[in-house]
């Protein structure tokens, strides 16, 4: 086995978890670790925007605005933050995601994650009524 093919051992040198991968910089934050990562995150939003633009072109601006109101109203029907996540049935029926099925429904489901952290009810309610910052469902540590 040629020498350059070996993985150099770096035991004992000054290292940090961050240094091991890369210097934590703006670029790595924006680009992500894989070209697809940002794409996956923005795909749903882009799709929604396109749908909205189609609706605007077809029915005028009032129609999608009315739909947005519906969405906002329906998104308020939520359980108090805690062990059981909100089902969002009404919202899903309006957006059509009720009959959707994709990888996001069975791959890497946060509810089955081993690093799942049960939501803090107090903090979650503070977030919901606007007293505190942060996501209402911090599912990952």
């Amino acid at each position, binding site marked *: 086995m040629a020498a350059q093919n070996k993985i150099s051992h770096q035991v004992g040198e000054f290292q940090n978890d961050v240094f091991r991968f890369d210097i934590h910089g703006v670029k790595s934050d924006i680009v992500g670790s*894989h070209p*697809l990562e940002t794409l*996956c995150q923005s795909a749903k939003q882009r799709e929604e925007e396109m749908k909205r633009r189609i609706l605007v072109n077809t029915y005028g601006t009032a129609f999608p605005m009315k739909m947005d109101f519906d969405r906002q109203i329906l998104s308020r029907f939520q359980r108090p933050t805690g062990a059981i*996540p909100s089902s969002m049935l009404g919202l899903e029926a309006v957006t059509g995601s009720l009959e959707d099925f994709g*990888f996001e429904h069975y791959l890497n489901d*946060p509810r089955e994650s081993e690093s799942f952290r049960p939501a803090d009810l107090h903090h979650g309610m503070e977030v*919901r009524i606007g007293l505190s910052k942060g996501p209402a*469902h911090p599912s990952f540590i």
Partner: protein
Amino acid sequence: MSNSAIDVPSRGGFSFDLCRRNDMLAKKGVNLPSFRKTGTTIVGLIFQDGVILGADTRATEGPIVCDKNCEKIHYMAPNIYCCGAGTAADTEAVTDMVSSQLQLHRYHTGRESRVVTALTLLKKHLFNYQGYVQAALVLGGVDCTGPHLHTIYPHGSTDTLPFATMGSGSLAAMAMFESKYKEGLTKDEGIQLVVDAICSGIFNDLGSGSNVDVCVITKGHKEYLRNHLLPNPRTFVNAKGYSFPKKTEVLLTKITPLRERVEVVEGGDAMEE
């Protein structure tokens, strides 16, 4: 979208946790393992009353044949089937996911799925992943608008054709189709032509091999002929098998008896006198 307080529970999806580590390893000169490919001949054609799909049954990992009899014709809907070529995990995951989506759609509408629906779902998914999901598909089916045959490329572009081939053996198979295909083939002629095309792939392309699978879809009926033809039977079988007179040396044996599984029958009237 307005930034209203729509905080729906977060969803899953692909996880990119290990990408950075794997990139780091790759930069250090480590070869990352190759994935299982179907390295394939898959074909499809339209005959007088439906669609015939065909596939070989070899799966390869680099130069190693890792499955001699794998299934490459995937179920999509009762009237739609799909042949997959490319990375085996991708073709399987994509076709399974879309077939679930079609089933959900059928529950919702109560109607038979259309081939174009499957086509749109597949190409939308593949286009979203910009060719990183390496699945080349031949989609065929018969719905209320007649027989349809489509090919889908990994980047999400599609073709609609009377006869189509995909995979590493596509050239060999296409040669057979180009010379013999005509409109209005009967079922037997169609199956024979598909078998010829697959066999041409099996014998002329090293990525394809073993047996021929055929799937015939007609209006309201389908016939999945698994291992329709076995042109490469195993010839080197020792009739008596191997026996080992000198036993292997065992250092330690530990035997754990399994618990008897108790079956509970509910609703019995045992204690009656």
